[in-house]
Every structure is written in structure tokens, then in C-alpha cells.
């Protein structure tokens, strides 16, 4: 019951915020937002420690169509995480989701969040861009405050996934639990 109520509330906020944030981000430059988000996603890798993953590649999964893909792909071709190459994987349905280091849940995704979270393996940093999603279980959630791109961090989700976030990152984040 509580869950449904929360979800409703968050959707309501989402609708309201989307209206505003679009305007706000337009003021900042609509074409800049995905680039910024891509850069942020890449920068998160510098402040988060993944334990027990000894793959030779760093996988960033994206669910839902999003303009963030292109700048993120550009980053993936030029940069690495540590020594690891970056691989971008696009998923269309929660069922397609495979092992990732980061899963970006775009706002264009229409599947319920819970179904996505259920399909992510442990040790995945989930990043969303929908208001209230952090409270709903994603580790990081982009929000726009005062025309600026910020992010929320769900410390509990981070701990549950076995991820260590640096204090440098957390001090910039809006902490939710």
C-alpha cells in the first residue's frame, strides 16, 4: 500500500518537474543536457568502486531510447575506466538486461522500475533520470535544480549493490534513502 502511494506521489512529482525541468534545461541549452549527463556518468566511474568484478571490459547498459547514448558512445571510444575499455549496450526490455557495471535507465523507458531493478545483477550502479527514482531504488538519479543538473544518491542502494561511493561524490549528491 505504501509502495503504491509513494509511486503515485513520485509520478505526480515527475510530471510536474518534467514540465519545469524541460523549460529549465532549455534555458541551459537543450542540446547540452545529454552531453552533460554522459560526462557525469563517465565521471561517476571515478568515484565509485566496483568490488569483485574482474572483467576486462567496463559495461554501461542503457535501457530506453535516449540522446545520452551518442555522447556516451563518444566517450566510450576515447576513454577508459581505469585500464578497462568501455562497452555500451542498449537494452529494449528488462528481460534483455545482462551483467553491467552501470545501467542507465533513461526517462524514455516505459517499463516499471521494479521490473528493471529485478533484472539487474548485484554490483550494478543504476542511474536514472526520472524524479523520485532514487527514492524508489536507483543508486543515482539525475535531477535539475535551479537550472542546474544535479544528482541524488541512494546510499542504501549503493550499499546493497556492494558499491563504494567516494565522499567526494556524496558531498555533491543530494542524499536520499
Amino acid at each position, binding site marked *: 500500500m505504501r509502495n503504491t502511494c509513494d509511486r503515485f506521489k513520485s509520478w505526480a512529482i515527475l510530471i510536474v518537474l518534467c514540465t519545469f525541468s524541460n523549460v529549465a534545461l532549455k534555458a541551459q541549452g537543450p542540446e547540452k543536457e545529454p552531453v552533460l549527463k554522459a*560526462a*557525469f556518468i563517465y565521471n561517476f566511474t*571515478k*568515484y565509485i568502486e566496483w568490488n569483485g568484478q574482474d572483467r576486462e571490459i567496463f559495461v554501461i547498459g542503457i535501457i530506453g531510447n535516449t540522446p545520452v547514448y551518442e555522447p556516451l558512445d563518444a566517450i566510450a571510444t576515447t576513454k577508459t575506466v581505469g585500464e578497462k575499455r568501455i562497452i555500451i549496450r542498449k537494452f529494449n526490455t528488462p528481460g534483455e538486461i545482462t551483467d553491467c557495471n552501470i545501467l542507465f535507465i533513461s526517462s524514455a523507458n516505459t517499463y516499471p522500475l521494479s521490473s528493471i531493478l529485478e533484472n539487474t545483477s548485484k554490483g550494478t550502479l543504476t542511474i536514472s533520470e526520472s524524479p523520485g527514482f532514487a527514492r524508489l531504488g536507483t543508486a543515482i538519479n539525475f535531477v535539475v535544480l535551479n537550472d*542546474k543538473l*544535479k544528482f541524488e544518491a541512494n546510499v542504501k542502494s549503493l550499499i546493497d549493490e556492494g558499491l563504494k561511493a567516494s565522499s*567526494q*561524490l556524496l*558531498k*555533491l549528491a543530494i542524499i536520499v534513502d
Partner: protein
Amino acid sequence: MQVFTSVIVLGLCFIVLVISHINDYKERKSEGMISLSQVIGSSSISAIQFEDKDAARQTLSDLQKVSPDVLNAGILDQENHLFAGYTKKGEDTFLFNSPGPGVRTVKFTTHNLFITNKIIDNTDTLGTVFIRTDLKELDNIKATQYRLAIIILIIGVALAFLISFIVQPYISRRLLNLVRIMYHVSETGDYSKHVTTDGRDEISTLSKVFNKLMDQVRESQNKKDEFIGIASHELKTPLTSIKGYLQVLEGIENNEPNKQYIKKTLDSVNRLQQLIFDLLDVSKIQSGQLHLNISSFDINVLIEETIASFQVISPNHTITRKGSTVNLMVNADRQRIEQVLVNLLSNAVKYSPSASEVYVSTEQQGNEYIIRVVDFGIGVEKEEQSRIFDRFYRAKDNSILISGFGLGLYICKDIMTRHNGKIWIESEGTGSVFNVLLPINYIAANL
């Protein structure tokens, strides 16, 4: 001089000290500020990466507490746009120039220290930290240092003065004593005087060397006097016999020009004998063996006789008597007084080759009898007047033209001193007056 030296040394020390102190402070300050900029930079990396200007501003605002002398600070992003800025309360904002290509720069101006430090994450340059620091503290340090330097310099100078004030008399007293004795020796020829040597410093060494030198001089002086004494004595004996035979020859030879030759030879022998007598006298004076033979005689008669006999020897000059010619009995050594008169007359004639007149004026003044021998010759220069009575002293300009040892006046002075009398010269321009003051009643002089 010592004070001046110490002031210079102290001053130099202080300049070096103050400069090194200031440089030290600057170095520490710049190191501190570089560390601070490093800390700001690294703690702002995440803020830059996530474009969180507020967080960066928050980091910078901590400077207020951490380092109050930072006036302005700023973080520029990769494009050198201001990412976050900080200005101390009450200070003006400051526009930083674009950073140079170097990783960090340190620049001192009169009142500020500027630091730029690039923020580097792995290999990426994310931005630059700027810090502008107030150097009021440095000004204070400078002022304190200068004040301290001046105070210590004044104390140093005062101490130097005090020390030299204390030490100076000790040194200069002994040096002046040495100088005094040197003067005394050079004036009197009394080489027996010694300087006291008490200590082991340079002045004592100097004194010792001086004493040793004086001993050597005295010794050689003694030997010389001894030699003169012996030589003149040995010369006198054969010369007396030569003179005796010449006199006999003069009496028996009537043929010319033989008689003329004998006469000339006799003149030369007389001159030679006179020189030897002078040397003997000097030798006696030096060895303290010149004794007066006091008797009562008529001084007026003596003068008349002396003038008369001298007139015979120098026919070119007219010797006139002036003043009182009253007969007067005096107690003195007749022979020695005569010697003085002859000496003075001979000098008067010798040193006035062009003039033809010499006169002797006499007068009695109470218990003293004054004889003046006046000539109109070349005179004696002021500077020379005090020295003409010295042994072997001869007037500079004329010593080549006029023969003699320069012993006559020395002997005269000694004779007069022994009579408790005086002899002195008055000479201005041409001519000179030699004055002899003789006490009528002989009182032994305290030599």
C-alpha cells in the same frame, strides 16, 4: 675607526639577516599557499567534474577560516571561465588573468602574493586554482626587523663606543708614552731612556724593540765617542810637536818664500789643532769629563784681548766694541769663555763673507753680564735656529761653502750651560745676533 668598522659589519650582518628572513618568510608563505591551492584543487575535482559550482564555492569559502590572509581565490574551468570565486569579506573582487602554460606560478608584488596552480586529474587538466594573498604580515615583519636592526645597531654602536672609550686610553696612553720618549731621545740624544714594557701585546713588543734599538744606538754612540776621544787624543800629540818645530822654523828662517810657506803650514796646523781640540771637547762633554776651571778675572779685559787677537787673524773684517766697557770681575772659566767668544767671532766672520763689520756689544744686567756678537751676514732661518746648537749641525744651504764640523756652537752651549748661563740666537733676514748670558758669580749648574 673601530666604531666605524663595527657599524659597517653590524649593518651588513643585519641586511643579510633581514633579507634572508624576508626570503624565508616568502618561501614559507608561497609553499603554504601552493599547498593550500593543491588542497583546494584536489577537493574541487569532483565539483568541477560534476559542475557543482556551489560545492566549489563552499570549498573556497572555507578559506575564511583556514587562511584569513587570502584576499581572493578562484577556480577557473578548462576554458578559463570563472567556475567559482571567493572574496574575503570587506575586500574588493579581483579579476584573475588567464593562467600561463606552466603547472603553477608564484608571483610576489609589493603587497600581494599570487599563486596559480593547475588542477590535474590523472593527466587531464580540469582547471586552475588562483589565490591572491595579502602580505601585510610581511610588511609587519619587515617593520619589526628594521626596527630591531636599528635598535641593535644603536646598542652595538653605543657598546663599540663604550669599549673603545675604555680600551682607547690604555692603548693610546702607552703609545703616547712611547712617542714622548722618542721625542725626548731625538731631542736630547739621551739613549739611556727606556720604555716600560708590561704586557705581551703589540705595543709591548714595539716598546721592547724600541728599547733594544736604543741600547744598540747607545752602544754605537759610546763606541763612536770613545773613538773620537782616542783618535783626537792620539792626533793631538804628534800635531803639538809638528806645531812646535814649525814655530822654531818660523823663528830661524828669514828667507822668502820659505818663511811664507812655513807660515801657511803653521796656519793649517793651527786650524787642524783647533778641530782636534773641538773633537776632544765634544768627547769630554759626552763622557762628562768637561770640567770648568773657575777663577776670578776681568771680563772686559778678556773681551778686549780676544777682539784684538782675532782682529789680527781676520783683517777683512772690522770688529768694533759697543756698549759698556767698564771693568768687571767675574767668576768663571776664563779659557772656556774665551773659547765661546772666539767661536762666536769666528762664526760671525765666516758667515758674513760680503759684509765687513762685526761688532761686540756688552752690558751688565744685575748679576748677569750679556755679550752680543752681531754680524750682517747671511743669517739663520727661523726653522734652523733651534737646531744650530746641536752636535754636528750645520746650516743646510751653506755647509758646502763653509768649512767646519759643526761642533763650535754645541761646545759653546755646553760651556754656557755649565756656567748656569745661556746662549741663544736672534736672526731675522740678514745678519744674526748671538747672545751670551753669563752670571757674574759662578753657581754650579745642576746638570
